[in-house]
Structure formats: C-alpha cells, structure tokens
C-alpha cells in the first residue's frame, strides 16, 4: 500500500458556536478520484477550504506530501500550493473580472516559475488553453465574454498549469447545463489520466459521482458517515443516511423508492452529542442519542459511522 498523498486527522472547524466540521479523518492516495457527497450543512465545502487553509481549523491536522499544512508557517505552505489546486462551483465568480484570461492562467506561473520569460509563459498559457479545448487566441479576452462552461475550462486551465498532484473540484459541474457537464467531466478525467493526478470531487449529484469516482465519502452535518468503494456504496449502502440519499435521487424512468423517504431536514443542534442523524433515522435507538458512533471499518475499505452497521437493516424494520 503506498503512502497517502493527503492525510486528514481529526479536523474540526467552527463557525461561531456551530461546528461545521467535527472530527474528520481520511486518507487520499495518489492517482485516485475520491468523491465527497453530502447536502447543505454537511461541511463538504468547508472541508475543501480547510484543507487549502482558506478557513481556519480549530483542531486537527492536514498532512500533504509530508508537510503539515495547518501548522507550518504561511510562506512554507505557499510553496506547496503549486501541488494543491481547486476549481470552484461558480466559474464566472472564480475568475477576476478585470484580468484577461491569459493573465489569470499565467499568474501561477509568475509566482512559482519566475525564471520563465514572457514569451515562454505565453507559450505555456497557449498550450494549456488548447489542452482544455479552447483556442489559444482567446487569451486576451475577459471572463465575461465567455459562457459558463468555457469559464470552467479556463478555471481548470489555471488550476492545472502547474501540474498539481491534487485537484479539488468543489461542485465544479453543478452550475453547468447537462449537455456541458459531460464535456467538463471528460476533460477532468483526461487530465487526471495524463498527469496521474489525484482528484477530490465534491458534489451533491450522486449520478455524476457514480460515473467518475473510485471511492466515495458521505458526509452529514460535519462528519464522515460512510466511506466505501464506488461499487460497494451504490450497490450496498450501509449507513441509513446514505440509503436515504440514494433513494431520494429522482431517476428516469421514475422508480418507486424501496426505502421510504426520510422527513425533515438536518438539525445542526443535534451535533452537540450523540448521532446527529438520529432525528431523521428510521432505525434510531436510545443509544444513538447518548453516543456518537465512531467511523469503524466493516470490510476492506468500507467504513461506517453507525451503531447498527453490523445488522442487516431492511426497509420495514
């Protein structure tokens, strides 16, 4: 088993008095695509920003290529940023409206490869634009002249220009039209394959996640509740929340859900003690109110945070 590229241990982030991330721990290995799924309040975007040190973590550690990202001094962390990049949800908002597209893509080059002269930089920018499917002549244009899908390609070009080892995609295709989503996902898969890159793909769209990830992590109100290989998770989900989530996804043609729909919405107030899902869980026990189940390994690589994970829970019990 190779060394993990990214090791997150006991990460905790608070927003005021509310815990946005509680005790999150996981590993990412080189070359894999891991999906992070969850709904609002799950903390998945906060996790991405915490890893990148865009928000302050209260506790925990993030080790990337052997460097503790949270505790090392800022200039040291900055040198490692070339290997850790992010693509955001809103393509237009992630590009500086006053900077030409070429300048935006070349900025990482100016920071990390200052030895390049202007002509060499222009060449790298042109190559990157072509690689993401845009014409190199567009480098002098401004973001507002492009469509959402094109802006996302530009954002990807900017993230990839330094060939990072880890790319975090935070809902990168969620605001794009259906007919464009496939283009961008295929682009990401191509780039990943060519560069042997690791991808952390954050999404609420389970159908998309199923198509491109090796492993899936499910979050609920700031905690990881299930980690499994993609096949295992979709074929045989264990955690009641995962099962409810999969049952709730509308399908074509429509299917009657085997698991009844869960009611209500997440209650952040329950994160203080016990399992935060207990108010919506059809299988909750009194134990669930007093004790927050730890993430434990069931079979090889399949982790679940549920007191009843060893039982076979059928929809009617």
């Amino acid at each position, binding site marked *: 088993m190779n060394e993990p590229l990214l090791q997150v241990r006991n990460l905790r982030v608070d927003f005021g008095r509310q815990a946005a991330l509680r005790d999150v721990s996981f590993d990412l290995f080189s070359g894999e695509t891991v999906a992070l799924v969850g*709904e*609002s309040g799950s903390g998945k975007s906060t996790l991405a920003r915490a890893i990148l040190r865009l928000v302050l973590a209260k506790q925990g550690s993030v080790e990337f290529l052997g460097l503790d990202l949270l505790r090392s001094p800022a200039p040291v962390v900055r040198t490692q940023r070339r290997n850790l990049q992010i693509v955001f949800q809103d393509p237009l908002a992630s590009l500086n409206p006053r900077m030409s597209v070429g300048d935006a893509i070349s900025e990482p080059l100016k920071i990390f490869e200052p030895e390049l002269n202007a002509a060499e930089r222009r060449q790298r920018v042109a190559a990157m634009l072509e690689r993401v499917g845009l014409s190199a002549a567009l480098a002098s244009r401004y973001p507002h002249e492009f*469509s*959402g*899908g*094109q802006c996302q390609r530009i954002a990807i070009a900017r993230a990839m220009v330094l060939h990072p080892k880890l790319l975090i995609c935070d809902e990168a295709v969620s605001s794009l*039209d*259906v*007919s*464009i*989503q*496939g*283009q961008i*996902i*295929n682009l990401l*898969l191509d780039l990943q394959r060519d560069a042997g890159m690791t991808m952390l793909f954050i999404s*609420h*769209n*389970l*159908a*998309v996640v*199923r*198509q*491109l990830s090796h492993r899936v992590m499910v979050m609920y109100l700031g905690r990881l509740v299930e980690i499994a290989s*993609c096949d295992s998770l*979709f074929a045989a989900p264990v955690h009641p929340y995962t099962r*409810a*989530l*999969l*049952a*709730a*996804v*509308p*399908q*074509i*043609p*429509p299917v009657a*859900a085997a698991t009844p*729909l*869960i*009611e*209500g*919405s997440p209650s952040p107030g329950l994160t203080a003690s016990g399992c935060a899902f207990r108010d919506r869980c059809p299988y909750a026990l009194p134990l669930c109110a007093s004790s927050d189940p730890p993430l434990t390994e069931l079979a090889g690589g399949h982790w679940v945070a549920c007191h009843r994970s060893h039982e076979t829970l059928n929809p009617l019990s």
Partner: protein
Amino acid sequence: MPATLCIDELSVSFAHRTGTVEAVDGVSLRIGPAECVGVVGESGSGKTQLFLAVMGLAGNARVRGSVRFEGKELLGATAPAINRVRGSKLTMIFQDPMTSLTPHLRIGTQLAEVLVCHSGLSWAEARDVAGRMLERVRIPEPQRRLGQYPHELSGGMRQRVMLAMSLLCGPALVIADEPTTALDVTIQAQIIELLRAMRGEAGTALALISHDLAVVAGLADRILVMYAGRIVENAVAAELFRQPRHPYTAELLKCVPSLSGPRLARLPTLAGQPPQPGDALQACPFAPRCPRAADRCRTERPLLTGASTSQVACHFPLS
C-alpha cells in the same frame, strides 16, 4: 375539454445593444385541466421567460401573441383584470426560496394577505385558512410558523410555504419554476412527493419548469422540450423517455448520468453549447450540434407538427 391555458405564437423579445433578442420565439402550447406538464430546457431555452410573460412579469420585454387563461385573454388585459386572476387562479412558485418571501413580514401575514385580497375574507378568517393550508403542505408545527419570519425557516420549508401560498385560492393552474433546484436531494424528494399529492387532491393543473429531466419524470403527464426559445418536442412522458423523436431530446437523455446504468469510461457528450439569447441562429437552432443535420436544417425552419400529444419540430425526426 376547454384548455386551462392556451398559448398561441407567443414571442418575448428584449432590446439589446446588438439588436433585438428573442428569448421566446413563437411558442404555442395547451395545458388542460388537472394536467401536469413538464417544461424542460437548458439555459437560454426560454422556459422561464415564457411563463414570466404568461404571468405578466416580463418586465421591459416586448410580448406578442396570445395567452388565454380559462378562455380569457391575458395579454393586453387591464391591470385589475390581470390582478384578479394572478395569485388566485393562476399562481407561480419561483426558484429561489430565499428571495421569494418578503423578509420583514411574518409568514402568517403574507399568506393571509392573499386571501384578504382575493377572497374577501377577514384577517382572522384568512389566518385560519392559512394555518390549515400549512398543515396540508405538511409543515411541522404550522401554527408556530404563522408567527415566524422567512429567515427562520429552512429552504425546504420556505418552498412549502410558497406552495401553500399558491394553493390558497384554489387555482386552476400553478406554475412552478425550478421549485426544487435550490434544494437538497432529500428535501427535493419530499417536495416532489408533496406536489404529487397536491395534484391528486385538488385537480389543479401544474406547469413544472426544470432543467432536470429526472425531477420532471416523476411528476409530469406530458413533457415539452425547449431549445433556443422554441418548443422542439411535445410528448407523453413515458413516450418521451422510451422513444424521443427530436435529436436534441435523444442527446440530452444520453447526457443525463444514471444511478442504475453501466459505469462508463467517458460520459456521453453533446458538442458545443446551448445558444444564449442574442446568438446568431440557423433556421433550426440545434443544427450546429445535431448529428443528423443536413442542408435543409440550416435554411428551412422546422415547425412543430403532429398530434396534440406527440409533436416534434424537426425535418428528420427519430422514429
């Protein structure tokens, strides 16, 4: 049966610095009583502009054509005439529950206001009816909610309140514009379930606008597919998914990833991007991206032809 909503050759155009832009280009459709019609399309398809024009909310746009609701023409009608119908018999739910409710008024006030204006009830009676409607849309603790402000409710609950508001006067048609797009998957499933229940009970027609085919699949009897401001296909839902006739519909269905199909090394894609209002269009706007396009498609505009529940606007429809 007379149609609840009858739209004929509706066009909505805006002035743009490069000229006039057609957001909706000659759309005709019918929605019958208690029918649920899904309207799907991507950005730039004109699906939202179409129904904003129906509601008289098109702003600065120039609206041409005919919109008859329960037999009466809405376009060009006087403001009092439109206001009698809007909010009572013809209602709309918008996409963003965060901004659809007035932030500084309590929920009970906003709901009661509809009844006081349209049904002539007193404020006390109106609050009663509002409370019962909140129960019908399965909001927990309905009486408490009446006294709360919008920011105290979650997105899913706000959308239920919007639904309640739209049903208060027993409308003949509810237009729902992307009602679940801003909501989480599990909440979305609840709202879809609620809409399904509402349809059964009150016999209200529903126009469900969405970019998400799967959401529409669970609710609609009939589906209209829009592209570049025009309707390109109109079919019974089951037929549309089983055997789409317009190439755009077929390609779009291929692009929707599914939970149950095989896992693919590459996702199916549709080259190019959907045209935005203002883009130059060929006679058939889908021609540049269509795998079946021929010369005729670039020069001759395909018209929507066929029976009332099976129409397609294509020179070479799939069969």
